[in-house]
């Protein structure tokens, strides 16, 4: 129970996000209107994805310094969870865009960047699938993980800021920046981000436990 306090925090924060996110008043802004509530669900997905992929990269670096199965499993499962968050982010974004922009896929620079980031990590899993030798698979995928993360930085953080975009928060559109994010919204937004990230870590730890259990089953079968 003492060790699991953060899981309880996550649940409480998410319950708060759900209730406050749908019921509390939000500023009336042109075009966005009530869909501004997507901020509590769509934006934290990207924060979560970045955090998961960063953790995955950190464990990939750790794996190269100290090749243990544990580092490899952690790296893969955090990448998996990050991919899941990314898919959710793109889906929620598409639902939002369908109502606000009129079509789910608008060819916005941020949408394209997100789609490419997901392609990178799908390629990562293809790479893992196509190497037979386990040790080599872990090492090659760790290298690709670090390389892809480095190549993703300009794609996600630099290029979208250089181009004009219809996405809220860029190109003069209202959205997430320190001048027009209402203080009432911050009260929900920051807890939402923390809650979703904690939930992501939780999902990853569960998957890691499943992996470990599977490995133990395999070992027992080998003995039998």
């Amino acid at each position, binding site marked *: 129970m003492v060790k699991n306090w953060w899981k309880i925090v996550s649940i409480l924060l998410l319950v708060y996000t759900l209730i406050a996110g749908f019921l509390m008043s939000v500023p009336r802004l042109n075009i966005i209107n009530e869909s501004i509530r997507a901020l509590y669900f769509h934006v934290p997905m990207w924060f979560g994805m970045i955090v998961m992929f960063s953790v995955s990269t950190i464990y990939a670096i750790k794996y190269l310094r100290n090749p243990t199965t544990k580092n490899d499993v952690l790296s893969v499962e955090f990448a998996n969870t990050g991919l899941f968050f990314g898919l959710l982010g793109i889906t929620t974004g598409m639902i939002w865009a369908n109502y606000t922009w009129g079509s789910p896929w608008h060819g916005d620079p941020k949408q394209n960047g997100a789609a490419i980031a997901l392609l990178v990590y799908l*390629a990562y899993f293809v790479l893992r699938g196509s190497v*037979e030798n386990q040790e080599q698979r872990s090492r090659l995928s760790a290298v690709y993980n670090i390389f892809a993360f480095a*190549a993703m930085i*300009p*794609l996600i953080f630099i290029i979208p800021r*250089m181009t004009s975009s219809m996405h809220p928060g860029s190109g003069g559109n209202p959205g997430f920046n320190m001048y027009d994010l209402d203080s009432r919204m911050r009260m929900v937004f920051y807890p939402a981000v923390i809650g979703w990230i904690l939930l992501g870590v939780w999902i990853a730890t569960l998957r890691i436990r499943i992996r470990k259990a599977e490995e133990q089953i395999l070992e027992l079968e080998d003995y039998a």
Partner: protein
Amino acid sequence: MIATLFKKEFTLELRRKSVVSGLVLYLFSTAFICYLTFNLRQNLVTPLVWSALFWITILFTAVNSVAKSFIGEKKGRDIYYYSIANPASIILSKILYNFLLCTLLSASGYLLFFLFLGDPIYDKLVFAVLILLTSMGFATSLTLLSSIAAKANNSNILMAVLSFPIVISILLMAIKVTKNCIDGLGWDASWDEMLTLLSINCLVAAVSYLLFPYIWRS
């Protein structure tokens, strides 16, 4: 050491002339197919279509030419290099060599497009610098990926899958600068993109330099 390895790549390439001529032929046939397709009706190749065709051709040629830098190597030769050279000089010499190869191929690609599809480029100098920078980007990012793909099964498909998402940020910049060159906007308009391209190249080169020893060890 780097110079020796670089010279070795060069001599090997000259000895197997079929590979380079194959690549040039690949480039030629792609440009020719574009020409034949778009020749059906006059004035179909607008400057932007030209740019799209040009970069698609260059991308596929670059992927194919760099892919062979590790995939083509024989198994025993790897072990021989491993025993006499350190990984840093191997990757640097390969990147340098691929840079040269990509630049040559892009330049000849431009010439072929010039011949068949006309030449919408207004700022020749900016475009030349762009070709240098993108070739550098292709060489730095694809060389490491080729060494990863070489270790796995069905490496040719894997090479394409691994490289496209990574090369896209380079291509995005290239397409934007090409449009500026076509519109004749001069240096000022493309300066930001050029700097971004250069920094992407430096980043990718540094990462491949650091990571290559880990691939090499296996």
